[in-house]
């Protein structure tokens, strides 16, 4: 691994400073780091452990337990596709296959140009109007293959 970058450690310090005093603070701190960087740098784990009086193993264990936390920088855009039953009942599996082939990646991979990370999610709470997709935080319903392509194209032209 490369040496920790200054901006990564600065984000870690800022999250510890802001959230470290809350009761049971680890998840709150980790959210703070991921909100600011988009991921949790493994180089920051020793510092989080020290500040919160935990072992590195405990922090690593928490980071890796939760699906939401990432330890690698995602693509410039994150596309989440719902795989759960209600979306499957409305053509979710076909959309999932389309998304993978359109982007040329599997779930939890990033396109080679670093543009897009594809993630699987299990329910976005949009179950009456699926298939559902969230792109960079924005939720979309009734997503057909054509609409998926249009949403991606709209993002690329920005």
């Amino acid at each position, binding site marked *: 691994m490369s040496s920790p970058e200054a901006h990564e450690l600065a984000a870690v310090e800022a999250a510890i400073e802001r959230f470290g005093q809350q009761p*049971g603070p680890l998840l709150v701190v980790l959210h703070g780091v991921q909100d600011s960087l988009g991921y949790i740098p493994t180089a920051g784990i020793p510092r989080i452990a020290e500040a919160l009086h935990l072992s590195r193993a405990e922090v690593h264990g928490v980071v890796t337990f939760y699906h939401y936390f990432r330890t690698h920088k995602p693509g410039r855009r994150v596309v989440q596709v719902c795989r759960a039953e209600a979306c499957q009942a409305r053509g979710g599996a076909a959309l999932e296959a389309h998304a993978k082939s359109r982007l040329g990646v599997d779930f939890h991979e990033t396109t080679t140009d670093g543009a897009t990370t594809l993630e699987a999610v299990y329910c976005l709470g949009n179950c009456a109007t699926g298939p559902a997709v969230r792109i960079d935080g924005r939720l979309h319903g009734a997503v057909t293959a054509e609409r998926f392509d249009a949403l991606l194209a709209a993002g690329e032209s920005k």
Partner: protein
Amino acid sequence: MIVRIYVPKDATALSLGADEVAQAFAAAPGVEIVRNGSRGILWLEPLVEVVTPAGRVGYGPVAAADVPGILAAIAKDGAHPLNVGVVDEHPWLKSQQRLTFARVGIVDPASVADYVAHGGYAGLAKALAMAPADVVKAVTDSGLRGRGGAAFPTGIKWKTVHDQAASQKYVTCNADEGDSGTFADRMLMEGDPLTLVEGMTIAGIAVGATQGYIYCRVEYPEAIAALRIAIAAATAAGYLGGNVCGSGKRFELDVRVAAGAYVCGEETSMLESLEGKRGEVRVRPPLPAIKGLFGCPTIVNNVISLASVPVILARGADFYKNYGVGRSMGTLPMQLAGNLKRGGLVERAFGVTLRELLYDYGGGTVSGRPIKAVQVGGPLGAYVPPQHFDTPMDYEAFTAVGALVGHGGIVVFDDTADMAKLARYAFEFCAIESCGKCTPCRIGSTRGANVIDGLLAGDRPDEQRRLLDDLCETMIQGSLCGLGGMTPFPVQSALKHFPDDFAPRHRH
């Protein structure tokens, strides 16, 4: 003249372009926009409502391009192809019995004044005038059972916490609504978050807890934002904080964001997660009501359970329990999802049948094909075949047909559904989401998927079938929590009702 127009900010409405619609209306002169929650008529979203002397007139589903035409119609007599009439009179809504969802879609979720104007905080006012034990008794007498799915009597949990002598107690709200096909928690938190805030405040006053946490899933950023705005507004208005409504009692509330682990919807793993740990299930006893968050007595209730408390206090336990059937008292906000023409939220007293929900409300499948099966109660719920569609929504009646009501989510599949694939998916999901603490769930889930693969490949199918039955039984009997213990339910129901789907498949 200023025209007031409601444009929902509910996540489903947003996913279908509500922000663009709101922007288009806001650009017109003489228009005041209110961003409300959703009425739950999700097949009409974005459903815009225009305030008229006759009531709030709905238009939906509206796209931004429809806005000029609607504005022109409003200026005249309102006639427009998307006009659905006065929304309160809409048959899909009018036949519902909305107690918990009474204000959702109607009020401005960010406004305490609007909340109070629609009957909000009447329950808290009553609770503050009562002895705490009487508040607990009212909840017990109402017959309210945990709406998260376990259906445990809410009042008994509260009484246990009330009876503990402790310097610190907590009220926690489980808003980790991870079940596919459920969105009632989300809709309530986005559309009327103050009802949840009020319910938790009443709980705190009743059991002597001064701190509450709402553990909300990270997949619900819109709900998290709405909750934070509501909590700040309630605090500013004196309904939360060191001196709730001048009573001298303290109750503070924070939102904690989950991190995408389905198992954290199980109450003890939720507590672990709130403490900042891996969301591994705790062995019970001790019960959370005795040793819960940070080792203190803790209420753990679902969003809908807590949000049903204000109406119970405001109108009395008898009012609430007069809805429903048998031991399933009150109302249940049911969620119609998946392959339905008219999906959305239907709050009715227990006792309404699946058939009424699927056909009268749901209108059958959107694909136009026959319904093959519905999964009720989330990914751990059984697949219910058409011969059981006359089962009333009632905890005991569902148990009798080998199914569960759960959180009231209903996912509809048409006859193209492959039940063996769905059964395999149940194992796959369990394998992804298992916390790993107990062996039946951690190993059994992966083995279950393998065995179904073997079965479908025609590799010693009789043996595989026996193995599968045995594995399901082991998981049910031996798992620490409902994830491993209930994953076999969808599998067994699929095997029982759709055996043909599990016949060996020959590759060409």
